[in-house]
């Protein structure tokens, strides 16, 4: 049976004035295996009814801890960001399917290119860790609005080559992640991406030479596939997918967003 748990907030770090990293501890971590899955966090306030889906940034099963990184977007994330070390958070998860790491392209000696946009970059970190453990080369291309919003550069650099772009040119390549992909002629056996929808559209337009997997987000209620709030249509066949249940990761071109 799946579980929910009151997990302990054991560490908290502000990455920017709007983006916070939290480390949570509890037995639920033992169920967290696949990168790209998410947890559904209860906001500590009765007026804020719905849980907030937040992707898992890093998992440490030996220490029974995992990390989430989120940006303050509204009332719920603001209240969550105010929790302090020692507080508990009611966690449901892990939920969703996450990034595929057992596909034929994932094998020792192959190269994976991980493309992140803004607050979409955190879940790529656990993915990169696991791909590296499988002996893959990992290249990270991370795009941000400006230098001030740039997060996790050091963490990703420790795992592999990390290229940064900013929209205002204050750091790295002036422009978008797709500009780096075009200019640097990066060859990879598999691509993974998480970020805003326009970035996915730009990636699709590049017709990359290998499979591309992207992680989507949508307003959710239950987070477990029962309410049909976060549904999208299949692109080339009948039927639909639930982003919370069959997703949040789909192969590029699989669904209509």
């Amino acid at each position, binding site marked *: 049976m799946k579980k*929910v748990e009151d997990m302990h907030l054991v560490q908290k770090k502000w990455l920017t004035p709007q983006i916070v990293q939290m480390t949570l501890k509890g037995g639920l971590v033992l169920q967290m295996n696949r990168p790209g899955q998410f947890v559904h966090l209860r906001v500590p306030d009765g007026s804020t*009814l719905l849980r907030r889906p937040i992707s898992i940034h890093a998992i440490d099963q030996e220490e029974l801890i995992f990390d989430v990184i989120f940006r303050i977007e509204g009332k719920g994330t603001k209240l969550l960001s105010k929790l302090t070390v020692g507080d508990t958070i009611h966690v449901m998860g892990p939920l969703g399917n996450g990034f595929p790491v057992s596909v034929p392209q994932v094998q020792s000696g192959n190269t994976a290119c991980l493309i992140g946009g803004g607050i979409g970059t955190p879940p790529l970190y656990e993915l990169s860790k696991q791909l590296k453990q499988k002996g893959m080369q990992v290249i990270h291309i991370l795009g941000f609005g400006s230098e001030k919003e740039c997060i996790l550069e050091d963490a990703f650099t420790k795992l592999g080559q990390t290229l940064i772009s900013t929209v205002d040119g204050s750091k790295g390549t002036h422009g978008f992640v797709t500009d780096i992909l075009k200019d640097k002629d990066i060859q990879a056996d598999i691509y993974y991406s998480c970020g805003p929808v326009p970035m996915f559209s730009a990636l699709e337009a590049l017709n990359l030479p290998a499979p591309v997997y992207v992680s989507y987000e949508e*307003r*959710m209620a239950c987070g477990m596939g*029962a*309410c049909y*709030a976060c549904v999208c249509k299949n692109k080339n066949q009948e039927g*639909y997918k639930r982003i919370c*249940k069959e997703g949040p990761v789909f192969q590029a071109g699989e669904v209509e967003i």
Partner: protein
Amino acid sequence: MLQVKLPGLDLKNPIMPASGCFGFGREFAEYYDLSLLGSIMIKATTVSPRFGNPTPRVAETYGGMLNAIGLQNPGLDVVLTQELPFLEQFDVPIIANIAGSEEEDYIRVAEKISQSKNVHALELNISCPNVKHGGIAFGTDAVVAARLTEKVKKVSQVPVYVKLSPNVTDIVSIAKAIEAAGADGLTMINTLLGMRIDLRTRKPILANQTGGLSGPAIKPVAIRMVHEVAQAVHIPIIGMGGVQNAEDVLEFLLAGASAVAVGTANFVDPYVCPKIIEALPETLHKYGFASIVDCIGGSFK
């Protein structure tokens, strides 16, 4: 102590997940044994599969949420051949919520689905605010609602409950018309029509523009309506609207409901229904009731 007998329904306890908040039970079955529940109101079923509305389909509100799913469901055939058989493994009577665009649709679904062996009652959905045709159009006019009730009653093999809309001027007159048409019970309330606007985009958040408001924010409205209707009709009411805990259940029972459905709270805590069932005996005892039945209609009897 917790048992309740209603037309078609021999309930081990008065708690059931509300239609639309529990799918067809599959996802929640990964969390707990569905046999713990008094009943399950399955997601609305229509003749043909429906995809529903564009996204965003939900928006949070103060103490509640708006939804405009649009009756997404796999259609009658899939419900009959896959969803209801899946639920047969659990010792729980099913209340099948049925919907349609025209009278004919309701009649066709009612006739077929009421023959399934675990369907013990129908819930006639004449109050969905999120579809362009049918839904609420059948539930806001007493004559139309009564005519549909009568026609569904004729073909159904099991008792028929009618789900009332709160988006009406006088809910009592509609309830009475439905009772006179032969309904075996009422379920109330469906969601209240609402809207939220995004300050940044200056547009409604929901792609459907409007949606149904649910959650604790609507509980006082539901309590008031159950209280009014319970004193005006002689058929039982399954009450719903913002129930979060055993105290809320008692409030609905006192208002005149004979059983209580839990909706939005399932999204907040997937274990809310078994938790409420577990807390009920102690809560009844705390307020001096010997049983659920002892509590029903206690605010006016």
